[in-house]
């Protein structure tokens, strides 16, 4: 399978970047890291700055794999149109080459149309076949002097490739984008110059083909017919001057191809006047006049073909560099490279976290509103530390009249807890208050204790949970809610919650 071109890769990379936007970042990381691991090791060093060549290589490798994965998945990913755009470019290139060859051929056939009546005017042939091309090349150089980006759309009108593009726009049904539109649409902002460079590059193909057509036609005519060249002008131009000009023009090939450089005698013998219908010095060997074809051919190659080949090379390099830079400067390109190169570090679970089973909210916990003093047995739960004991003033403020104090929980053993329950049961209290640390959550062992406590007590015995605040603090709403939620599950009509005040 043919390797996709740089242009195709550019378009497909932009399409994939757009397609990836809404996707989960973790998935993209995994995908791209898997691709990156497949890169040769010298590309894969994370943290080391890679040069542009490596970056481009890696991005092209990335899109190649992503395309494959998309194809394997039944093309459910981004729409890759890079290949079709490249095909459109190739077709345009073919048309330009064909047009150039045909144009050059027929122009030469026209300019060198020889019926034997008068020799072919060398000056006219040089001006049309070489001079005009030099003029167009000069225009290109002038406009490109400010950089390829300064070649505006205006000049592009004279570009053969731009003409083909305009024709395609007219021929396509309304709304169908042609390849330049699709390329421009795929480019990030500010990269419109890439399309211009493509058109200039394609235009150079036409001009190269044009010159090849000219050369082919000239060789054909020289081979299948006899041509005779002379020179004729209304300007006051003597033979010596003409010889000097022609000789200077032949400077590039004088040494390499001396046969293609004219002698003074030939220049002198080739002048003719149409009114006289004869050569200046007639008769002359027609074969000698025909030898001008070598000069003409050398001039076309030197001043027509070779400069355009050079322009083609420069424009081609410029165009490909523009594409490459556009790929690398694309938004998110650096992120793709980072995802490929950096080791995938994960520190969290990928699956959903199991949430606590939500059950119906328990009935609201009864809050004790101390209207009158209540006489209670007091249990201090896990309050062994002296600084954490409940004070008499706190109990008084809570309208609690303590009868006896018991200790449970904390570093008491379970047997000791059971012993406390037994003693309380023996006393048959009307109310029991359990002082707990408000800041500590109610554990299952506390709930066990409450449940066991309730069993021997009378059904109408109130059990009041007194929330003890930290020193210099109050019981806040969160602490109250924490205790209320847990104790409400007991569904005990005689279980109450009350916050003690700050000591």
């Amino acid at each position, binding site marked *: 399978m043919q390797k996709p071109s740089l242009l195709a890769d550019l378009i497909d990379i932009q399409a994939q970047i757009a397609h990836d936007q809404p996707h989960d970042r973790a998935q993209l990381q995994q995908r791209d890291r898997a691709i990156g691991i497949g890169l040769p090791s010298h590309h894969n060093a994370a943290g080391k700055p890679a040069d542009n060549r490596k970056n481009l290589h890696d991005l092209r490798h990335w899109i190649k794999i992503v395309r494959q994965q998309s194809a394997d998945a039944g093309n459910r990913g981004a729409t890759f149109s890079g290949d079709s755009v490249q095909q459109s470019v190739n077709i345009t290139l073919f048309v330009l080459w064909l047009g150039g060859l045909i144009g050059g051929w027929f122009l030469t056939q026209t300019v060198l149309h020889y019926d034997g009546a008068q020799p072919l005017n060398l000056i006219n042939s040089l001006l049309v076949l070489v001079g005009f091309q030099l003029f167009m090349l000069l225009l290109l150089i002038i406009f490109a002097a400010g950089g390829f980006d300064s070649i505006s759309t205006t000049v592009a009108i004279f570009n053969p490739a731009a003409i083909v593009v305009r024709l395609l726009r007219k021929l396509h049904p309304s709304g169908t984008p042609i390849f330049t539109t699709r390329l421009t649409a795929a480019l990030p902002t500010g990269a419109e110059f890439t399309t211009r460079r493509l058109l200039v590059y394609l235009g150079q193909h036409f001009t190269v083909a044009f010159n090849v057509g000219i050369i082919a036609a000239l060789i054909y005519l020289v081979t299948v017919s006899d041509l005779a060249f002379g020179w004729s002008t209304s300007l006051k131009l003597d033979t010596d001057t003409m010889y000097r000009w022609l000789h200077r023009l032949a400077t590039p090939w004088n040494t390499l191809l001396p046969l293609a450089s004219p002698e003074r005698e030939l220049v002198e013998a080739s002048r003719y006047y149409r009114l006289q219908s004869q050569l200046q010095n007639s008769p002359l060997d027609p074969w000698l006049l025909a030898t001008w074809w070598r000069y003409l051919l050398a001039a076309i190659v030197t001043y027509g073909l070779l400069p355009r080949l050079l322009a083609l090379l420069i424009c081609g390099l410029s165009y490909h560099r523009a594409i490459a830079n556009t790929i690398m400067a694309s938004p998110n390109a*650096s992120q793709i490279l980072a995802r490929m190169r950096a080791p995938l*570090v994960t520190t*969290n679970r990928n699956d959903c976290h199991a949430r606590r089973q939500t059950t119906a909210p328990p009935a609201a916990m009864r809050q004790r509103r101390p209207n009158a003093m209540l006489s209670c047995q007091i249990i201090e739960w896990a309050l062994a530390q002296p600084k954490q004991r409940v004070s008499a003033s706190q109990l008084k403020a809570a309208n609690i009249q303590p009868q006896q104090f018991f200790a449970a929980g904390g570093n008491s*053993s379970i047997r000791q807890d059971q012993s406390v329950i037994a003693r309380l049961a023996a006393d048959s209290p009307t109310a029991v208050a359990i002082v707990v640390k408000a800041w500590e959550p109610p554990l299952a062992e506390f709930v066990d204790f409450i449940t066991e406590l309730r069993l021997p007590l009378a059904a109408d015995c109130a059990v009041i949970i007194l929330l003890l605040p930290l020193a210099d603090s109050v019981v806040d709403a969160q602490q109250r809610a924490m205790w209320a*939620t847990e104790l409400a599950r007991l569904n005990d009509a005689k279980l109450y919650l009350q916050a003690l005040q700050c000591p």
Partner: protein
Amino acid sequence: MPLARIPTFAIVGHPNKGKSSIVATLAQDSAVDIAATAGTTVTPRAYPMQIDGKTLYQLIDTPGFQRARAAMEWMQGKGSEAANRAAVVRQFVAEQRDNPKFSAEVQLLDPVINGAGILYVVDGSKPYGAEYDPEMEILRWSGQPSMALINKISDNDYTQDWQSPLSQYFKIVRAFNAQSASFERQVQLLTGFAVLADDWYAPLQQASSALIQQRQQRLNSAANRITDMLVAMLQLVEVSPLAPAADSDNNANITTQVYKYQQRLKTMELSARAEVEALFNYTDIDRLENPLTTLAEDLFSQRSWKLFGLNRAQLMTTAIISGVATGSLFGIGGGVTLLLGATLGAVIGAASVWYGSEQLVDTKIKGTPMGGHQLAVGLVNNPNFGWVLLSRAVTHLTHVLNRNHARRDALQVPHIENHHNAIVTAASLSTKQRQQLESIFAKARNRKMLDLKQLAQIAAVVSELAGRNRQA
């Protein structure tokens, strides 16, 4: 008990002491279930730290002890010789596995008997109590390497209260605030784990290095994302077709388009902020921020038309060149001098475009309009705009860098007046950086594509500014 092959740490302790917050912070996972109510974690969950699929260590979030005294009494009933204690703990887990009474204890001890190290978490903002002794004793009986973390959940400080009792049970005691610990403190803690067991030293060191590298990569990616956003917003132009209508209708249309443009800018910034947060693994966090505002008078809007895809200036230039060529032909063929022919051609060509082209806009050829009117809104031509965007993005990034994954409150991006913030940001850079950035912004405002070096310069400034402002 033998150690697990992969360093494994069971985060254990009383309920509601911040165990899950510790896990969220160390695992950099804001999805860890943290709630103010006790008992949120009901089943153990493992958080493996992996590099390219290879696990370097794992954290296990466990439910809190619920019946530590009863469990301890069970174990003590089986014998208390030091040599047998670890086996007794294993026996407890094996025999009580199906007993719902001890489900919490079994679940939190299971990873421990399978070789996990112990990270025992207490709340340093609450005082020590004797009720903690049984669970600490159970953990000591397991014989596994252990560390105690004093995690201050609120403002009170009882850290000193805890030092003595904890050091009696644990090899290492460290203070670590899960909600405010910086990234560097987190890595420090991880390195501290490495001393618990010699076999775990190498993978934990490798993990620390990988996390540091990941942090830097995230910062680079965030800087690149901000750069992309900046450039896109500086270059944003929205073009819409304008149907032939009365001026008053068109004015209303312009107002609508300007509003839409402003909304688009806001959306671009919000989208970039969300992506930056996602880079640091903050998904679905609430954000309190002042939205980006742009004044309508700062926007460049232009009503223009295009004919043959060319605007007026381009058409005139074309006409001039064509006129020169045509005039030249006339000059050659008609006996008029070359220069005069070319000049006349240029003038005629330009004049015809100037006076006649507007009429052609509405003309159709085979039903296809030759041209049309369009409205272009944008760019924001306030020269400070780039600095405003930069300073806002850096402020947001700094707050993301300073946040950690145990927090559940909204990310509060402070309200700083945009232009003041922009000035402060610009002033904090060197003269050279400021000039470089200004020329890059100017190039972007001219809708020229920035080269790789320029993009890297913006990203470097973003990283530098964000790095300066983050807490150690």
